[in-house]
């Protein structure tokens, strides 16, 4: 008896391709994607940090430090138009560099210095959205300071500095470094903006894929036949559904961000943020709606749609950076992620809520998202042709 039940269940599973896919292929696929991301994490963490360096003085120590930093493979030193603190700060605020190092006049080692004349601190104007970058630059600065001091004092690398044992040797770091938030204040948490956007867009994709199943439901229960017989036309039918999904998506993402604003102090309720939010949310919802329609046009049954949409959306979410910040990924995956529309949505939200950028700077994201929305919608229309005439 039990063996018969077992056999029937086994046969059912063997003939259910979606179940087989979800049971055996999907876990392997996800393991592979996550393994690629996290196996490459160490490497990714020391990927060159985009940095600008400004030396305010012309002392040998400052020059040596700049020289040292420029040779470090963990840093990618970007050129800067004007070598002053405010320009450097602007470069970080624009998101071009993750850290700006400002070496003040008179900077030097704290070790061995007179307590009354401790050298001024080197400033790190940092974008805290990537905490790894801050750590990397800070460590490199300390190492660089020691190396420069050794060179200036003509000490063979590896041997103690001649100042060892003198006053100030007990200070924890050889170089005084002050980290300054280039973006926002201490209350501003980059993770809130990231997760509101990441999870908001992820669930937006799930929601529209789920709701777009109504097309398959209509096909399965004969309503599509009735709609086509009523001369609605497939284009108008898809347009109506698409519009609904776009509105649904906008409302869903708005609810998520309002909650983030109310409960986690995300700065949403200012005209600039609201405008930026709307400018990114509408094309994001449009692209997600088109994706939902495309998925339902590709699939033949609702069961198939459920399976396929889980696979596609989770892959998009991993590649696009919805589940974890893209700076954790190996560069190849990060580049691949740029091909997903959701990565552009996240980048747009980051620009609005973290980098405080204005509407003109959001144009690339808006354009790419709109293009995705159009392409996916056209593909969905093309594939749905087979529904139009029931003999196809």
């Amino acid at each position, binding site marked *: 008896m039990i063996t018969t039940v077992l056999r029937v269940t086994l046969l059912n599973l063997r003939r259910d391709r979606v179940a087989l896919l979800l049971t055996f292929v999907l876990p392997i696929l996800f393991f592979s994607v996550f393994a690629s991301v996290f196996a490459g994490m160490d490497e990714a963490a020391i990927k060159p940090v985009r940095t600008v360096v400004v030396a305010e003085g012309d002392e040998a120590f400052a020059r040596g430090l700049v020289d040292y930093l420029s040779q470090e493979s963990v840093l990618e030193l970007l050129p800067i138009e004007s070598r002053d603190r405010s320009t450097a700060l602007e470069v970080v605020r624009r998101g071009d560099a993750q850290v700006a190092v400002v070496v003040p006049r008179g900077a030097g080692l704290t070790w061995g210095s007179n307590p009354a004349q401790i050298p001024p601190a080197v400033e790190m104007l940092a974008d805290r959205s990537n905490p790894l970058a801050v750590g990397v630059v800070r460590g490199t600065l300390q190492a660089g300071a020691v190396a420069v001091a050794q060179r200036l004092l003509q000490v063979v690398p590896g041997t103690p500095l001649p100042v060892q044992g003198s006053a100030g040797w007990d200070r924890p770091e050889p170089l005084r470094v002050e980290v300054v938030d280039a973006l926002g204040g201490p209350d501003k948490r980059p993770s809130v903006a990231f997760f509101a956007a990441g999870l908001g867009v992820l669930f937006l994709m799930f929601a529209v894929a789920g709701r777009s199943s109504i097309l398959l439901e209509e096909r399965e229960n004969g309503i599509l036949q*009735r709609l086509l017989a009523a001369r609605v036309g497939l284009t108008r039918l898809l347009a109506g559904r698409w519009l609904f999904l776009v509105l649904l998506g906008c409302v869903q993402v708005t609810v998520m961000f309002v909650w983030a604003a109310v409960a986690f102090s995300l700065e949403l309720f200012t005209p600039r943020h609201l405008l930026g939010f709307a400018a990114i949310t509408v094309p994001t919802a449009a692209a997600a709606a088109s994706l939902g329609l495309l998925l339902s046009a590709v699939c033949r049954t609702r069961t198939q749609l459920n399976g396929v949409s889980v696979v596609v959306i989770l892959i998009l979410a991993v590649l696009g950076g919805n589940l974890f910040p893209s700076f954790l990924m190996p560069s190849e995956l990060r580049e691949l992620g740029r091909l997903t529309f959701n990565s552009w949505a996240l980048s747009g939200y980051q620009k609005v809520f973290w980098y405080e950028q204005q509407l003109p700077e959001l144009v690339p994201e808006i354009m790419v998202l709109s293009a995705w929305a159009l392409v996916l919608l056209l593909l969905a229309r093309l594939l749905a042709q087979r529904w139009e005439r029931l003999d196809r």
Partner: protein
Amino acid sequence: MPAQRPILRIEDAVKRYGRVVALDGLSLDLQAGEWLGLLGPNGAGKTTAMLAVAGLVSLDGGRIELDGRPTQGPVPADIGLVPQEVALYHRLTARENLAAFGRLNGLSGAMLQERLRWALDWTGLESRADERVGRYSGGMKRRLNIACGVLHRPRVVLLDEPTVGVDPQARERIFDMLDELTEEGTALVQSTHELGDIEGFCDRLVVMDHGREVASGTLEDLIRDGVGDHAHLTLELDREPPDGIVPDLEILGRRITGHLDEPARDLPWVLESIGSAGCRVVRLEVRPPGLAEVFVALTGRELRE
């Protein structure tokens, strides 16, 4: 008197799905107010024929005319389609479903409201008009399903197996509703493979098999032309009769079945032969031939094969 122009004419319709020929030169005419039954087993081409009329399937050959004009491309407004499935939004109420399909079929304003009232009255669903359709019984859903297809007053209504899965009472109710439509001049084409759906309701029948018409006419015509006026006899005896007791009838255990060409003449002789063999009749049934026999006679197979 000149012949009335048919409201719907199908001429030599051909439709192929790959190697399968769904319609193989089907031709038929339909007059206003006529109720035509398309009878045939699954795969006979009934649904394909209806979808072709509704403009949802393109023909590979032949033509379809509605009121003398060939139909091509978009579905004509004069056609109402009632799909085989219960094609309703189950989370919407009856009123909301009717309103939605009414609007999609071009109704609005006072006309829509008037037709909504008519449909709810016609289907007998007024008292539950604001209830979700998902809570309705099968018969109620079927009635609403038909109403959504006829709300816009089409001149031809295509009903694809409109009573599948409903109990006999609900079916009677549906046929009464359809009868009202034909009285108002609406022409109906109803497909079915259920004989009970056709017998006694349709004005005319077209028997289809392998995409072709194999016979057409009234039920009486079909019976007379298909199997003649014989009667079908079934006898059950108290014990097994000896072989050859009633030539031309089939003996299976205690049961005897067969056709009687002239029941009034042949039945007394059969009963006498049985009595003389010492058997007693426990049950006797003499039935006139029905569509089932006609179908077997015309196609050589049962309707449900």
